[in-house]
């Protein structure tokens, strides 16, 4: 198992806190490299269930990161924000590669109806979701961030409030909840429309 050196992470975080913007890049790269390595490991013994693997991956990543508990809440919130973002990239990359492999291997086109697909696959098409999130970010950056933190970072509305206010965006929990609901509605709409246009 690859190891994330918590001490280094902490140091970069502190630097970032003291205003060193380049520290954030270092931090992101550090986390990304590590998670990516993990993802590669998983791909080697890939089973059919992509989502499950991805979830397991992220679980392990968090397990490694929880050594950071001694950080104050602000640092932790910052970091979790970073991790959520990184997590999104890793998972989407992973999904993209996975899809490419499938196509390359001449995967069979599933013959289920469109509605059936939406219903049957509880797992979301991460690549499409990523694109939809970009679109949402153009329209409303905060909503996109909220979704990222919730869906990829696993944060509750309350925790999202903390992370956002650590980044000097002060919002109420109710706003976050409403943001999430609206974002889910819009993302669902776009993904559905996307599917309809490609499959019909």
């Amino acid at each position, binding site marked *: 198992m690859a190891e994330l050196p918590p001490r280094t992470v902490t140091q970069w975080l502190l630097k970032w806190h003291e205003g060193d913007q380049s520290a954030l890049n270092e931090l992101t790269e550090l986390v990304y490299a590590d998670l990516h390595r993990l993802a590669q490991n998983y791909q080697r013994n890939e089973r059919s269930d992509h989502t499950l693997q991805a979830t*397991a991956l992220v679980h392990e990543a968090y397990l490694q990161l929880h050594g950071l508990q001694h950080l104050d809440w602000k640092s932790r919130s910052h970091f979790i924000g970073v991790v959520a973002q990184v*997590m999104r990239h890793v998972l989407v990359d992973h999904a993209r590669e996975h899809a490419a492999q499938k196509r390359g291997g001449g995967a069979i086109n599933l013959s289920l109806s469109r509605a059936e697909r939406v219903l049957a696959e*509880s797992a979301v098409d991460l690549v499409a979701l990523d694109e939809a999130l970009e679109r949402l970010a153009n329209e409303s950056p905060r909503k996109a961030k909220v*979704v990222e933190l919730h*869906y990829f970072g696993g*944060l509750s509305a309350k925790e999202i409030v903390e992370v956002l206010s650590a980044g000097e965006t002060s919002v109420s929990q109710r706003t976050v909840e*409403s943001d999430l609901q*609206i974002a889910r509605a819009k993302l669902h709409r776009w993904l*559905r429309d996307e599917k309809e246009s490609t499959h019909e």
Partner: protein
Amino acid sequence: MSDREAIVDELFGRAIELEPASRESFLAAEATRLGPGLVDEVKALLNDHDEAEANSFLRRPLISTEANEPTPTLKAGQEFEGYQIVGLIAEGGMGEVYLAEDKGLARQVAIKVIKGNLKTKEILRRFQSERQILANLQHPNIAQLFEAGATPDGLPFFVMEFVEGQPIDKFANEHELSVTETLKLFRAVCSAVSYAHQNLVVHRDLKPGNIIVTKEREPKLLDFGIAKLLHEADAEQPDVTATLFRVMTPEYASPEQVKGEPITTATDVYSLGVLLYELLTGRRPYKLKRRTTDEITKAICEQEPEKPSAAVTREHGDTETRGETKPKSGIRNPKPLRGDLDNIVLKALRKEPERRYGSVEQFSEDIRRHLEGLPILARKATLSYRTSKFIKRNKIGVAAAALIFLTLGGGIVATTIEARRANRRFNDVRRLAHSVLFDYQDAIAALPGSTAVRQRLVRDGLDYLDNLSKEAGSDTSLLRELAGAYEKLMAVQGGTAATGRGTLLSTSNLGDTRGAMESERKALAIRERVFALEPNNKDVRKELALCYLGMGGLYVATGPPDKPVEYARKAMPTLEALLAADPRNEELQSYLSDLYFGMARVLGSPGVPNLGDTQGALEYATKAQSLSEKLVASHPTSLDYRATLGSVHNLLGLILNGSGKLSEALEHYQKALVIDQELVKGDPINTSYRRELAIQLGNVGSMLTKMGDKSGALENFKQAVVIYDALVAADPNDADIRRNDAVGYRNLGAAVGTSNRAEALAHFHKALQIFAELNGKDTNNADFRRQWAFTYLALSRFQSQADDLNGAVDSALQGIKIDEVLVAASPTNASARNTLAQLDGQLGATHAALAARAGGARQTEQWHAAKEAYQKSLDIYQDMKTKGTLSGADAGKPDEIAKEIARCDAALAVSEKR
């Protein structure tokens, strides 16, 4: 953020809080204020939101942040609680189901665990509830529970029958079942649901995915994850049901479920109606344009389903027709559905619960009538109306009462002649009490977690028995049956019944010693009455003897020890005479072996209140051993007899240990340990065997402690506590197992000792806490009380070693206070007196140690206190010596203590000179 976006967000936020019905009027009002454009945007958002909700879109984060939780996902190939995981087969909202290999029994099983990051209180509660429900259900069409427990780190799991097959809808399609075949298959499903109802369980989530049909065409009901015990329905808040709606599959939900109204058995009738509709027509009963929550809710509550015969002739293309349920051969023949089946299905699907079939049994019965060409009930629309009203009025949590209703309900309503009714009722109640007390108890007794259910069965059964006793007269067969029922009750409440096979194992009981005594006394009174009526009947004599034996067994726990000896002596001549007349009778051999065993215990086993007659104890234990070995030799594969032999070895170890013959004792303990390991291997889900194994590990550990092998002892104690903890987790209501768990912690604390003070203290405190609870619940149990006192003694000794002398004094005093109650109640109780003597001795030693440290007046005080305590200890030992109840191991005690007293005197003399 643009102003427009802000307004839309604001409107959305307010609308989403409202009930769907009031959203309309709210938005209409806003439309007149803000214009339709904005409001339409909000409406579209609301619609998309509902659809996202209905499809679970992004509902749960892809990941969880609870990094501290162990990841629960088991991996293929991994060993888990003695099973080998093959792979994940299903994943639900709260649990995961794995296919696993049970190597011991060479079979495949399904293991259900909670996802580790979802261990919320509510989910744990629901998981426990499912386990409890399954433990209570044994039916060929319900996937069977094999084992339930928790891993050492507290992850609850249960092991079930692995059902291989297809969901019922797929099965029906692929095998192109005819209407008749479909109906027969469906009736088997009904029998399972009806059985669950008789056990007061409503499934609440009946759908094809939860009904798997095997190759043998046997349907099996799975997933009681949101099932409910009927009597609990009252306590359920409406909003809980509302959230449940999301958990369950909306298409199969009944109107009352959707609306959050009370759930009864009629709810399952409805879901079965939907299922039958789908099996017969290949369609769902409602036409839906969109699968949003609102649409489904509306259809379920308002739309009248089309007749099945009409539905099969309808054109294809409706959205609710799912690919997999579409009939292969295109449009089905409507003819066999017309008339009866239309009526039957629609009756099950009525919106009002009271207008549906009164029970699943009636539903199934009507199908049978249809199959046999008899007139069906569905035509007479309101027959069951009164019946379901009755259920509603009497949502009692009483198993027996509801069972009576379910089995007799029809009879009571229909029979007109009063006398016939009374007679029939009497016999039915008799039969019912019998099955409640005997069949059900036996069926569930060996299952972990069954204690609470058994308790309830007992309470209800007892009421019926008491009523029956009043009406029994001098009908000896009924009287004997009644006595048997009381004896059974005694065993469940708190005793160990003499039943002949493997009875020396402690069956799990409810720790209600007083209740057990009362039941056994009632049984004894009846048995004596029967004996007076039929003094020459061998069976009657035998039963009376066994009843004496049972009574004696109860006194073993409560003391004084001369009582069990008295009863054992009453039973012994009869059993010995019967065996002499029929020397090969293995049943009698087994009973006598039990009797000798019990005799040995009360004469001189340090584990129970005893008379301190070590020699007599060894004599009887050896008799029990030879009978037991005979039985094992003639039944080499019987686990029960082997278990009995294990218990006899254990007893011999205990007695020999008490008389200071350590290596001989260890030998017997190790023999018992080997037997127990074989037993657990032979039957891994039997809790009694696991419990005995843990007891033996503890015994061997104690011996090793005495013989100076500290690390060996610690290892054995640790293994024992792991087993006990798992057993307690599986059945927290079992008082005996909790007692053993506490003893385990006490041993562990002593074994850890000063090598890790904090850990040792934690173990002691855990043991004390358990004993305090046990004694609070069952104040008459002498054993619980003495163990409690003994734990204070062990703690005090540890504190002395750890140099916390003041703590040691306090603990010894606590122990004395607790133990004195016992000695006062029963002055002949040797083990209670022995414990008290030890406590006084420990108190004396601690004061002496304090004296050695103190100076001046303080020092004199401490010597006085030490002397006083030693003196009390000596008095007890000397009295025991005079009465001949001082065990061999303690023979030297009076002299030892006398020396300590002399030391105190000398010290006091010195200080007085000053």
